[in-house]
Structure formats: C-alpha cells, structure tokens
C-alpha cells in the first residue's frame, strides 16, 4: 500500500511539473472539480488506484490509474484546475499523460534519455512510477 502511495505521489509530481513548465501569469484556477477519496478499488482483475490530491500553484491535481493483469491500462488526471490559460495547459498535459504511459509500456524501457526539460522530467517520473508499481 505504501508503495502504491509513493507511486502516486510520483505521478502527481509529474503532472505538477508540467503545470509549472508552462508558466502562467494567472493566479489560482477559476474553478476546480471536486476531488475523489484516495484509495484502491479492486473489481474483477482490475485495480483502480486514486491518488491523494496534490496542491499546485494552479490548484489541486489528483490522478487515477487503472491496472489490469499487471499492466497499466490508463492514467488520468481526475481533478485539475480549469479556466483561462490553465485549460490550455490541461488540454496539453492530460493527453500527454495517457500517451506517454502507453509509449513507455509498449517499449518496455527502463529509463529515458532526453534533453533536460520539464516534460522530460515527467517521463522519467512516470517511468520510475511504473517500476515502483512493479508493472
């Protein structure tokens, strides 16, 4: 359980990094969807893990993953700031989250080498998160 929580904080951190990269001059978000209770739910062969909400400068971010048969099926930000410039950030950040999850999984890689920038940091955090979850 502790491992899962760690995993989650990594993923949440990753999202936070993306948010911080596209620096917005705007303050707190205009609106935020209600957060869900953190925890693990197993149904059939599928486990859904909901992370704790992480506060970012734009507002709270909360991430949920689904694991089935030992494979990461999806990673989704279920709570994120909305409104103004932040919507642009979200429309960028969230598809990347799903896409990279799939890319990292399909290539069965252990690590990623790339030019240092924040999205790259995200990739690594996700990869590390995958390892912590033993996927």
């Amino acid at each position, binding site marked *: 359980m502790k491992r899962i929580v760690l995993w989650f904080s990594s993923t949440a951190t990753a999202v936070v990094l993306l948010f911080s990269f596209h620096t917005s001059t705007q303050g707190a978000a205009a609106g935020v969807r209600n957060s869900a209770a953190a925890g693990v739910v197993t149904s059939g062969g599928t486990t859904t893990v909901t992370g704790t909400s992480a506060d970012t400068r734009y507002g709270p971010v909360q991430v949920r993953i689904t694991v089935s048969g030992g494979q990461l099926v999806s990673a989704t930000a279920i709570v994120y700031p909305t409104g103004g410039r932040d919507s642009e950030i979200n429309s960028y950040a969230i598809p990347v989250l799903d896409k990279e999850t799939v*890319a990292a999984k399909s290539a069965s*890689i252990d690590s*990623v*080498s*790339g030019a*240092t920038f924040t999205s790259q*940091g995200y990739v*690594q955090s996700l990869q*590390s998160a995958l390892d912590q979850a033993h996927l």
Partner: protein
Amino acid sequence: MKRSWVEQLMGMPISLLARGPDARDDRVHLAVQQVYADLRDADATFSPYRPDSEVSRLAQGEVFEWSDELREVMQLCDEAEKLTRGAFNARTPDGVWDPSGLVKSWAAERATRHLEGLRVDWCLNAGGDVVVGCPSGEPFRVGIQDPHDPAGIVAVIERSSGGVATSGTAARGAHLYDPASGAAAGGYASVTVAGPSLRVADVLATAAFVRDLTVLSSGYEALVVHLDGSQSTTPGWTNDNSVVSSPDWA
C-alpha cells in the same frame, strides 16, 4: 525484483532503479539514501540559484576556502573545454563561471559510488542523463526521446555499464551556442552520446550539439536526430550491449 526511488533535486527529477534479488534489501535502501545525500550536497555547493553556494559566492567575487569538489569541477570544466576544442565552456558570455552543464552528470555519476559492491543492477536517471551498472551482466533498456515528440521514443539502446546523455533544445528553443564562434546551435534536433563515462558523454553531447560530431572522443558514439526528423549515427553506435571500440571519430 525491482525498486525505484525519485527525488526532485537540482531542478529535475532524479530517479534510481534497482534490479535484482536484493533490490528490496535495507542495505540497498541505505546506499540509495547516500546517493541522494551526495546529490543534495552537490546542489548546495554548485547551485547558481542558491546565494550561499560556492558557485554563487565565486560569482559575487567573495574570497573563501574552496572545497575539494569545487576544485575538482573547475579542473574537469577546463579539461572538457580542451577535449571539445572550446565547444564546451563553463564561462558565460558575460564572464560568469557556471558549471551547471557538467555538474549534473558529474554529481550523478559520482553518487553511484555508493552502489558499488551491492548485489543489484542500478540505473540512475538525472533529468534525462542516464548512468547504469549491471553486475548481473543483463543490460537496461534506455529509450532515446524523440526531440520532435517528447512522448515518443526514436530508439532503444541496451547498456550494462556507462552513460547515455542527450542534448537538444526541442522544448526551450535555442539556448545553446558554440562558445568558440558564438553561433547558435541549430544543426541538429538532438544528439545522444553513449560511452564509458556519463560525465564525458554529457559534455560531448553538449559540444556535438553546438558544433558537430567531430568533437567526439574515442569510445563515445552518437545518435543524431536531424531537424527534419531523420536519424544518423556514428559508425560504432549499436543499439545492443556489445562493447564497441571505434577509431577516433575526428
């Protein structure tokens, strides 16, 4: 058995993956804490963003007793400048000494000394620069990020020792230039260099990115992603784990 750790240090996530029967052993966990302690120390000494770091104090013209680490990094920066015929230079155009281009990989590689002698394979990733050690002989698979699509990978290489470093400007625009000529880098989308030392690979990746592949040293091989998305490699580059010793590229 695998275990990994991630900490945000020096402005980037630094992740460490341990693999092997002892990956969850307390000794490994303690060694990893020492790795991160090393990296925190390096940040305290070399961060240009910390007013009390030795680098900041140097920049302010303060006179103080230099640490052994500062002397070592100064010497390595000088060596890197010579090795690359000026394509790597730790001095900014306005004369400030900023070794950030070398410190990250130097500190990462140095910190892995705490992992020697343990019965685990390890892979340390410092913001995109990767160094691995595999006593088992089984390599790690390192994806090379696509500079035109940060979510994609252009190649996967397997390595059981040494470092892999990538230099590029995809996300931040042109921020690198050739210190010798002052010309902005722009010939490649990214350059990845692999070889026995991560620190040297990092220096060479930066130098090759701002100039060209003639700066590469013997034992270091490169994969280039061009601006049009095509790729090329040096003759000795291999995606598998075979040990390559190629003739000097220059």
